């Protein structure tokens, strides 16, 4: 387990800011203690300093997970955000998309969201903006990338894709193995 290098930190924060903007510092300075990111086996883990101290006792090959995994770095050093980060990103999300109950299941299976399934969308969403997808009951379902701006969404036909799927909570069942 090691701290992130500068480049890694930069890459990761860029990715995160696509979803939560400048609220990243809220992740680090929390009222209940200092939290930090650490890298272990190419995965980025977010944990409080207390846990960090405890985890240093465990040898590298035996350590499986610490705190919450945010995502991993691919071989080419790109950062891929995992669904496990949803709980932390959802409260700070800047742009949100609500999906209708009928298309909820479809999104949870890994499909993109079409105009017909779109319930609400935050104003002024730019194209290719990172969004957090919610159900109509305000339950966070996953992440996505807006395929169209809010304006365009209004005008486009019902069968066109408005949000690209990135991660959804259905992955807890579909790809449990890739979580670690």
């Amino acid at each position, binding site marked *: 387990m090691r701290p992130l290098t500068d480049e890694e930190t930069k890459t990761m924060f860029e990715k995160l800011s696509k979803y939560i903007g400048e609220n990243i510092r809220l992740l680090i300075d929390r009222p209940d203690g200092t939290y930090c990111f650490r890298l272990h086996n190419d995965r980025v883990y977010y944990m409080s300093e207390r846990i960090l101290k*405890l985890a240093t006792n465990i*040898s590298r090959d*035996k350590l499986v997970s610490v*705190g919450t995994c945010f995502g991993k770095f691919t071989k080419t050093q790109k950062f891929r955000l995992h669904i496990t980060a949803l*709980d932390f990103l959802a409260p700070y999300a800047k742009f949100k998309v609500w999906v209708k109950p009928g298309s909820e299941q479809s999104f949870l299976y890994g499909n993109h969201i079409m105009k017909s399934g779109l319930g609400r969308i935050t104003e002024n969403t730019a194209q290719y903006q990172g969004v957090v997808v919610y159900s109509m009951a305000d339950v966070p379902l996953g992440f996505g990338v807006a395929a169209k701006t809010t304006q365009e969404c209004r005008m486009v036909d019902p069968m066109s894709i408005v949000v690209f799927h990135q991660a959804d*909570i259905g992955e807890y*069942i579909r790809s449990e193995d890739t979580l670690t």
Partner: protein
Amino acid sequence: MGRKLDPTVKVKRGPGRKARKQKGAETELSKFLVDDDGPKKLSSRSRKRAIKRAQVTKEPKQEEKSKKGFSDENSKWLKPTQRKRKIEQSEEDEDSDSQWEEEDDDDEEGFGKKEMEEEEDDDDEDMVDDYGADEGDEQDSDGEELLPIERAARKQKKQIRKKPGSDDDEDEEEEDDDDEEDEKDDLKEDEEEEEDTVQANFDETETFKLPAAADRAKEGLLQMDLQTIHQRIRDNVDVLSHFSEKREEGKERSEYLSLLRSDLCTYYSYNEFLISKLMDIFPVSELIDFLEANEIQRPVTIRTNTLKTRRRDLAQALINRGVNLDPLGKWSKVGLVIYDSSVPIGATPEYLSGQYMLQGASSFLPVMALSPQEGESVLDMSAAPGGKTTYMAQLMRNTGMIVANDANADRLKSVVGNIHRLGVTNAVICNYDGRQFPKVMGGFDRVLLDAPCSGTGVISKDPGVKTGKDEADVLRSAHLQKELILSAIDSVNADSPTGGYLVYCTCSIMVEENEWVVDYALKKRNVKLVPTGLDFGKEGFIRFKERRFHPSLKLSRRFYPHSQNMDGFFVAKLKKLSNTIPTAPRETEDEVESTKTETAASSEQIQKPESKQQKPASTPEKSNMGKKQKLKPEKSETPIITKKAGVKSENKKSDGPKKAKIAKLDGETSKKSAKPNKKQKVKELNGDSTKEVVIEKKKGSQFEKNNKTKRKNLLKKNKNRMGKNKFKKLKNMVGQ
């Protein structure tokens, strides 16, 4: 304005445009339907008509009956074929069952139609055996060839009717061959099934007969059908429950038991080993309940994740999805039991967003017993698949830290998944063998050990256990569990301000894996059992077959599928009293018990002088006791003279050092006079440190415990780690 409707003026409305059609339907129907409504006021004519109607319906029946004999005039020369057949049958019956020969004939001819009726009715009853009980069928059967089942049924009817006279027959039967006996047993069994009224009489007179050994060997070759075996099991259990009344003369209880054992193995598909073990644990009637309960699944239960939602809201959301559920019980605030569901309960959006977790009801119990507090550090030694870990995290509200360990790397993936899904942030997951634990990390406030076991409590989930487990498996599990529990105890920090607890649990009902392991831990480490806080469930065993366990094992709890309707489980909560490890080998159980037994407020005083006398003669071993003596004055207790006899009776060994040791114990444990000492402390003989080592099995009160820890802490403050030269340091302390 419209016409005003005046309710007082009743305008009689005649038939409208469509009235005729409707009336017509009614009249047509009334032709078919007999008006059976209550007393309708009938004129004389209508009464006559009603009577005629009734007669008409009776007549067909009569005709049916007389069909058997045709019309009255023709009955003499024209007999229906069925009747002949009946007579033939009865003749056949007579051939096979000699006893009932004449009686059959008499009945057959004497009863006549009535018999027919009865048999028709009886056929109806027979039809309980999955043949439709239709009038039509009945008539068909009468008119045509009787089905073999009906023939057999009729035969049995006769037997039942002859029952009062058949007791004598039964006695005669006893001299018959075993084969016939079995047959008759079968017949009787079938009869029993048919008529309850007969059953009552039957039980009083029927004695369950053990088949002879030769016959049993034969059975091995014959395929005995399960129905028969089941009946035999029931009868056998009945006999065993009222053995003195129902036993056969000359047959030993062990014979009945061995028959029962083999029947149970066959019927429920267990291996001999497991059935014998279960027969040791349960009384016979409870054993049947247990085996039956293992055949069916326990209800599906879920646990609300209070980090994300409340039980009420979750229940509402699931009900809206079409799930039929209920709260789990009074004992749980977060459990819900699912009766049925139109959606897969493991794939709802609520599940995926981490609002609940699928978890067996019995898995709630160890975490409830452990009750981790906020801010503590907790170790879960055998965490997969993570249900208990996440429950602990939710009880701790994501504060403190949890280390979730499992030896199996594949199963750890599910732990990771569940932890992330349920939003647990204070967990570290690692993949060690549990036995390595105190080396990796120690000093936890609480530890949960859900030890890998033989799984005899979860047979309903995994029927392979029925045949797959044998003696070696159980002992291997027990050995591993003993190692694990010692490691777990060593990982607990006894001096933790809020904790110092270990919960040991297994999903097994075997005594070797449960009470024996806990008893082993009590002997090997300074721990004691404390109440689990679970007010239901059966108490653990204090003795089992030839083994005797510490009496405090009563505080542990056992749960069974047939009594608590959850998977078989065992939970024991231990409190660690001191961080030192007693290295003195406990040679015998007696010795251990003597040190553990309660002492009334010290007879130590009386023993003190004895030990003091022994002191000068002390060998290096006993030097510690000298220390103990010196420590005594530190305590500002007023010595209480108690019954010497009492203590002496408790101390089975009167060897010098041991006596002194016990004296030490007494001295050190005596608290404020009034309270009876429940704890004894034993100073380390070889003392790595001179910290007080408290061995305890006891029912110490909380107050006393606190006193002890206070005293311990005091002492600890005084002495740091004592080196080899304990005498000096002690002298210094005493000098204070």
